[in-house]
């Protein structure tokens, strides 16, 4: 345990010294820089505020049906699911692709010591992720309900233990996953496909459980139970993920001993699973790791085809192709970017896919009668993916130690922008195709839809990509030790999402207001014009930022 602790301390010191939060203050410009970053972070607030005030309404709805404990379950379940799903990539990157492994593995350390240390340092990040989600639930419930000190004590324990079980589950899943995909030369591809399947299976599993538990409660005396038992919903729906249920039940049963028992159960199971995870890590961790660092070589080297020398392309095409190759060949990047644009559209239709025929038909009719709305939402969705795919908002951060190449070559900033935007558009194209597939499955894909979503979606991905790139060019995170740090564990992603969400929200609102007034085709044209105009404006700003950053980095 002591050694784990020493490793954790080293890891945290390392991570946070290199971290995004560290800004050097040397002169006035640095202060301006920090202020701009803070203002950019504030751009997240409107969206966050919107979400939190929505929560308050949800509380009232649950209160009205006498099931306010459901509110807690929602928050805890949401937090734990986010840790579980996002944890998979964090864990994979941190356990298997981080640069300190070259130092740690040769040291006389047991696998469980390495894994334990990495787990604890990941946990710190998970708290940062979970707090903004869970705290509003806990605070709203605490204020609106008559609670005593016990509530806040149990809450503290809940918050502390909330990420542990899901992160242990991700760790175990990933360790077995890596262990059994550690074969042959094509393991990167195998792992990416496996990852996409794993995520979809996990979600399908969740939905299946949900529909079973929903069916179970809708019997004759359901209404009667609803009135007499204030935790019936939690106990029925919480089956999806029992630990969340325990925590919710403990926080809502303050007055009797069951509250205490549930929190003890929650804590005990968390600790137990942690030790199971450590136990398993001793057996499987190295088996997935060793051989990972090996790169397959052709062996028959002399046969390099001479035509390979002769390809020549424009600088921005060269940059785009380089970006795409790096994305595709780095598993963590691939899973975040292309994996993301494939998974999100599929997950959206999964609930319908699993639902009964009747509700699907209902939905199909609904969509058919609102084709224009479907198209507009599709455009908004693709435009949003332009940020969520992370390609632009981490494009300079991903250069990492290779940044010197970009800085010493004579590359026109215009080519940098065009090339990197192009790489994002290539990824977006994959997302658009998957969205077409999803819509087609719902019977909501028309020829018009194909054109509108395709064209406006790509046009819209340009300004959102540029927003992400401005943020990333302004403060690239170049010193990272595992690839996930450059991707999702990068503050730039969050800032870009905040600004991008505002941008899309604004356009969406405008389109919504115009819907009843003017012809839909005029709206399409207006949106296209906004996209083009904002691209051009952002382009000029971006050019300045790139010039400045490439010259001034140290």
């Amino acid at each position, binding site marked *: 345990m002591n050694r784990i602790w020493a490793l954790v301390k080293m890891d945290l010191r390392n991570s946070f010294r290199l971290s995004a939060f560290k800004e050097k203050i*040397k002169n006035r410009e640095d202060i301006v820089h920090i202020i701009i970053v803070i203002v950019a972070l504030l751009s997240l607030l409107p969206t966050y505020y919107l979400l939190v005030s929505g929560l308050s309404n949800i509380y009232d709805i649950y209160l009205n049906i006498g099931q306010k404990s459901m509110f807690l379950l929602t928050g805890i379940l949401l937090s734990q699911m986010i840790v579980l799903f996002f944890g998979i990539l964090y864990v994979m990157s941190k356990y298997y692709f981080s640069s300190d492994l070259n130092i740690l593995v040769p040291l006389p350390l047991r696998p469980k010591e390495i894994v334990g240390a990495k787990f604890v340092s990941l946990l710190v990040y998970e708290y940062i992720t979970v707090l903004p989600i869970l705290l509003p639930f806990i605070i709203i419930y605490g204020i609106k309900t008559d609670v005593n000190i016990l509530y806040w004590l149990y809450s503290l324990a809940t918050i502390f233990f909330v990420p542990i079980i899901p992160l242990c589950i991700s760790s175990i899943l990933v360790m077995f996953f890596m262990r059994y995909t550690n074969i042959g030369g094509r393991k990167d591809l195998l792992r990416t496909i496996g990852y996409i399947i794993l995520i979809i299976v996990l979600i399908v599993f969740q939905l299946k459980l949900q529909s079973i538990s929903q069916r179970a409660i809708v019997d004759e005396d359901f209404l009667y139970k609803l009135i007499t038992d204030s935790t019936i919903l939690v106990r029925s729906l919480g089956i999806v993920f029992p630990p969340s249920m325990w925590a919710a039940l403990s926080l809502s049963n303050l007055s009797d001993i069951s509250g205490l028992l549930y929190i003890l159960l929650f804590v005990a199971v968390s600790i137990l699973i942690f030790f199971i995870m450590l136990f398993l890590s001793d057996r499987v961790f190295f088996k997935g790791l060793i051989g990972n660092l090996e*790169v*397959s*070589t*052709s062996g028959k*080297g*002399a*046969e*390099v085809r*001479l035509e*390979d*020398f*002769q*390809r*020549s*392309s*424009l*600088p921005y*095409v*060269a*940059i785009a*192709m*380089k970006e795409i*190759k*790096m994305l595709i*060949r*780095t598993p963590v990047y691939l899973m975040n970017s292309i994996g993301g644009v494939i998974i999100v559209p599929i997950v959206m239709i999964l609930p319908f896919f699993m639902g009964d025929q009747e509700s699907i038909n209902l939905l199909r009719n609904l969509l058919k009668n609102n084709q224009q709305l479907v198209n507009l939402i599709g455009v908004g969705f693709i435009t949003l993916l332009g940020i969520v795919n992370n390609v632009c908002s981490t494009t300079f951060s991903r250069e990492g*130690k*290779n940044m*010197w*190449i970009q*800085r*010493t*070559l*004579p*590359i*026109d900033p215009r080519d940098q922008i065009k090339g990197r935007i192009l790489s994002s558009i290539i990824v977006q194209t994959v997302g658009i195709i998957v969205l077409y597939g999803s819509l087609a499955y719902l019977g909501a894909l028309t020829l018009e839809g194909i054109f509108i979503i395709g064209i406006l979606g790509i046009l819209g991905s340009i300004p959102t990509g540029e927003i992400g790139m401005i943020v990333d060019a302004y403060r690239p995170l170049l010193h990272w030790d595992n690839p996930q740090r450059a991707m999702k564990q990068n503050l730039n992603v969050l800032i870009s999402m905040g600004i991008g969400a505002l941008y899309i929200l604004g356009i969406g609102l405008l389109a919504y207001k115009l819907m009843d007034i003017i012809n839909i085709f005029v709206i399409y044209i207006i949106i296209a014009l906004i996209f083009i105009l904002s691209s051009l404006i952002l382009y000029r700003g971006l050019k300045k930022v790139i010039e400045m950053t*490439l*010259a*001034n*980095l*140290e």
Partner: protein
Amino acid sequence: MLKLENLSKSYGKGEIKAVDNISLEVRPGEIFGFLGPNGAGKTTTIKMIVGLLRPDNGRIYLDNIDVWEDPLKAKSKISFVPDTPQVYDKLKGIEYLNFIADIYGIPADLRQERIEKYLDIFQLRHAIGDIIGSYSHGMRQKLVLISALINDPKLFILDEPMVGLDPKSSYNLKEIMREKCNEGKIVFFSTHVLEVAEKLCDRIAIINKGKIIALGTMDELRQHSKEKESLENIFLELTENE
């Protein structure tokens, strides 16, 4: 011509001057050696020339182009080989070379000719279809060298280029450096290998604690020193008494 004027740079809060008011000129057709103990400021100076570190003070001109005023134009005349060969390890060797050639806009036939020539000189042809991640340190070093030579630069600037190269490649590199300077190019490199500097360089600068303490041809350096024999003696004498 490469001209450094009153160049200064300090790191962090500005307490230590890594480079302190350096001025020097390197003429076309010259091989210029940059020597000095660890931490003397060699890498810092080189980084300022190639655009990786903005100088606190002073100017750098290459053929009368201010490197920091017109970076694109200057960079298209410079090839840089850093002290650690850090490159995109997910690209294949040939893909990296093609990327560099695309950026410099080298036409296909010319790039093929140059790539083939240097691949053969550095005996890297067999690995060129492999992912760079599978290369040894020396192989990466060679790849970076080749990528720097594709452009046929006006200024060829190398930071400790011999480190990690096998004797044959090291010899070939010296030949190439000489060939470049015969073509009227400028070769500027830092090294700790004094014999190399002594044999190869037309002129030498010795830098210590950010200041140039000696500058000139071997003969000129000898005159500054009591022990008039090898560069090693001169170097030790000059850098010792501080």
